[in-house]
């Protein structure tokens, strides 16, 4: 069966959406329900991969809707950065689904139908974000993503979960309605278009005061990029079940944020404009501060998921820095880091979830000696940590490398120091966990109360796959690199030129 590329693009968004109907209809039969989710994710991977081969061959896919909304329409267009994002998200959806089946059943969670349904909507909107052909479309799916993930955060229904959900929604909606919407409308009003254009949409003559303000509005408005002071939602979201934290709050949602930042910087402002705007530097240093502060806060967290959440905030800062450095290498590094960090962080979250299911431990201080009982999990955790820190043999090395080059290119030495410092901090807060798990022995074990076994098989399978992915990406980063360079080219510039 041969589908036209346009139809395939549409299907990437529709397949998860249709899966929702299937999931709701089969709510009484868990096996069927999860079967549908799995099928949908396999189909999605197939679709995204086929689209990838088209893009790789130099083609483009554009889907234009009639002009429903004056000045804008629901347009979709595949470009390399979106490809990275959608590839990562679709592959990891499959892995996460496998993982969640183990996790949710192992944990006897309630409302599982709602869980899978909202998950599918979230993925659908991620696809929408990835392939959005203009700012308007992107904004719409951005909001849908916020709303569809809210029930996932509040999943447990406890007071704590409700509070977390309130913070989550409060910050994400506040920033997006207050700043982002204003920025979008402001852009439409000043530039007369919301289409993504290589080199930016603004006229040369547009006052820098306006564009500078818009940039600030955008960077703050994209709350999902978790730039301080709008980062609180991410730790708050950690009340969610772990698969949610893993896929959505380490990959989909936050990456949607930084993805939007990159897109806006490249296609709405353009590098040339970014370089001269007075607000760019301010925001750049704000992002740098976010990186350092979040790392410092992470060190003081004893709850594993909270530590990972702050780590995510810090890593997101990297990508924003990459975008705001306004150099080719910076963008390249930022774009690659989307993929690299995704694999690394999802591994870590999978491990955290596995530990929780198997041993009901959530605090790092309780995890001494755990490596003996859960060796596979802990090895995977180690690999994931390496990738986040940026050490070989894990994929994170490459993206961090380009980011530092970017800082050097723009001669912003302070930023370079921040990046180096932060890597050291990463080591300080991530590596002790596996080290402690393997090298320090637990007192209870000596008393002979060993009851802890490895996590459910499905979960183990999933986390092994992603950990393996981290290593593969070190030795074989070409696809990511190619796509990131293609992104630069599509945006009207290229690396090394």
């Amino acid at each position, binding site marked *: 069966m041969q589908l036209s590329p346009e139809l395939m693009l549409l299907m990437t968004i529709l397949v998860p959406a249709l899966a929702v109907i299937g999931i709701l209809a089969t709510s009484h039969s868990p096996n069927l329900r999860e079967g549908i989710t799995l099928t949908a994710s396999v189909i999605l991977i197939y679709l995204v991969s086929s689209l990838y081969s088209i893009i790789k061959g130099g083609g483009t896919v554009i889907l234009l809707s009639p002009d429903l909304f004056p000045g804008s329409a629901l347009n979709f267009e595949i470009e390399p950065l979106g490809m990275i994002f959608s590839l990562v998200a679709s592959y990891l959806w499959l892995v996460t689904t496998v993982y969640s089946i183990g996790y949710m059943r192992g944990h006897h969670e309630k409302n599982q139908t709602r869980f899978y349904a909202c998950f599918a909507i979230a993925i659908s909107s991620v696809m929408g974000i990835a392939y959005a052909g203009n700012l308007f479309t992107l904004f719409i799916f951005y909001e849908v993503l916020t709303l569809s993930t809210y029930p996932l955060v509040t999943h447990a229904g406890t007071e704590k979960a409700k509070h977390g959900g*309130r913070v989550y929604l409060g910050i994400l909606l506040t920033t997006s309605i207050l700043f982002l919407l204003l920025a979008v409308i402001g852009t439409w009003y000043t530039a007369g278009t919301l289409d993504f254009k290589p080199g930016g949409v603004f006229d040369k003559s547009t006052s820098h005061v306006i564009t500078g303000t818009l940039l600030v509005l955008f960077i703050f408005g994209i709350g999902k990029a978790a730039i301080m002071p709008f980062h609180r939602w991410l730790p708050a979201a950690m009340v969610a079940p772990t698969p949610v934290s893993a896929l959505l709050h380490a990959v989909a949602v936050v990456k949607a944020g930084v993805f939007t930042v990159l897109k806006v910087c490249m296609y709405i402002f353009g590098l040339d404009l970014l370089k001269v705007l007075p607000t760019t530097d301010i925001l750049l240093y704000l992002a740098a501060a976010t990186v350092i502060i979040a790392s410092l806060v992470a060190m003081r967290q004893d709850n594993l998921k909270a530590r990972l959440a702050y780590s995510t905030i810090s890593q997101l800062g990297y990508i924003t820095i990459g975008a705001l450095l306004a150099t080719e290498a910076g963008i390249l590094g930022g774009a690659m880091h989307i993929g690299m960090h995704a694999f690394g962080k999802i591994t870590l979250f999978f491990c955290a979830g596995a530990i929780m299911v198997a041993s009901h431990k959530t605090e790092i201080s309780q995890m001494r000696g755990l490596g003996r009982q859960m060796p596979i999990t802990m090895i995977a955790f180690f690999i994931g940590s390496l990738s986040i820190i940026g050490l070989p043999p894990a994929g994170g090395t490459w993206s961090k490398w380009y980011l530092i080059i970017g800082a050097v290119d723009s001669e912003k030495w302070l930023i370079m120091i921040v990046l180096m410092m932060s890597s050291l901090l990463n080591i300080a807060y991530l590596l002790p966990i596996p080290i402690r798990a393997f090298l320090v022995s637990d007192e209870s074990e000596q008393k002979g109360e060993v009851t802890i076994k490895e996590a459910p098989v499905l979960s183990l399978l999933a986390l092994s796959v992603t950990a393996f992915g981290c290593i593969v990406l070190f030795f074989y980063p070409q696809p990511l690199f190619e796509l990131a360079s293609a992104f630069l080219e599509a945006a009207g510039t290229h690396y090394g030129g």
Partner: protein
Amino acid sequence: MIYHYPVLQVIIPLLGAPLCLFIRVPRLVGFFAVLVSSLSFLISCGLRQQVHLYGTIVYELGGWAAPWGIEYRIDQLNSYLLLLVSGISTIVLIAAQTSIKKELPENRHIFFYTSYLLCLTGLLGILATGDAFNVFVFLEISALSSYTMIALGTDRRALTASYQYLVMGTIGATFIIIGVGLMYMMTGTLNMYDLAQRLPEVYKSKTVLCAFGFFIVGVCLKLALFPLHLWLPNAYAFAPSIATAFLAATSTKVAVYLLIRYIFSVFGIDFVTTSLPLHDIFLVLGLIGIFATSISAIYQRNIKRIFAYSSVAQIGYMILGLAIGTELGLTATLLHLFNHALMKGTLFLAIGAVVYRIGSSQLNHFAGLGKKMPLTMAAIVAGGLSLIGVPLTVGFVSKWYLIVALLDKGWWPVAVLVLISSLLAVIYVWRVIEWIYFSQPRIILDDVREAPMSQLIPIWLLVLANLYFGVDTRLTVGVSKLAAQSLFGVTP
């Protein structure tokens, strides 16, 4: 027959109402009301088509040419609203069949439907007419019948709410006739079109200014502009759910129409801007109203009251659109007029379905309904999201246009305030959603089931309209633009 469409539009419910008394069988009366209302809806569709093709239609009642007789004058603006009012009315009536059976004792059914049709007649009459005094007569028809409908609510507070509304409404109506009288005094005519021709000669006079002042205050009482909104929350909270759905979706909208009609078609925008700081007043009242009532909405414990306060806040947005005083602003107002009717129709109908099942609209009684009545609750969520202005819903479209209009005028701070205010909507809508989905039931819900089909279908029709017009804005924006253009063009 096409020629008679303008008048048939109003006459069908007008004659339908007394016929209800002859039918005498409550069930049949219900069906009959649906029939009457849908007929009138079909006619309004035809009328809209006519206006689209041939422009303004004038119909002389009694065969006497205006200004001696009364004329119906259907143009872009009111054909659009006629469509809205008769459409919403039909949808609400379909849901009414079961809802009313539960909420009212049987011997009052016929009276309720009769009042409903009378109210519809009144609203359509106000929209269609081109005569200043005729407006007053039909205003009173709609007002008296809404007092009746509200007073039929089961809680005793419905009576006081209705009384309060009666006093406030009558003061408003009296102010309006004072205004009309003063206008008549200076020009000798009651026909709106004729007034617009003759008023410019006497623009300078204090009497016309005074007429304008009284008229505006009277209409603002009717449309519940802050701070003249005090009658509204209780009236909406204690009326039968169907009445609330109908009134919330249409009645204040018609009052807003009246305001627009007089400002633009009768007095003329030039007069309005030069003689009074009306725009500033509207701006300030609109903004304060939005904030004050949104905050009140947050603290309500009855879900009907939450959305009643929110209605007042939404009126604030419409007034804000008027305050901008540009074509874009007016377009935003008209859009929001239409969109808000859809949102509130959805919300109050869905709440009506809940009242039908659990007999209460207390917020805490909604706990746990997410599982018991998933489709109804999904409709409330959809309506709520629309109220916030989330993309893909109609609320987003109106907010978008309002902000564009504000930016166009250069009012950045106001645009920011509007956005902040929609965060208040997030808070009150989210309170509802948390109760619905993430709380333990406070009352026994064992025998609670999904709402009956006859209510679900109309509710979801409105939800789909909410979503459809949130994506495909060609119709709504197109018509609002045309109407706004014609209003700015018509002014002498």
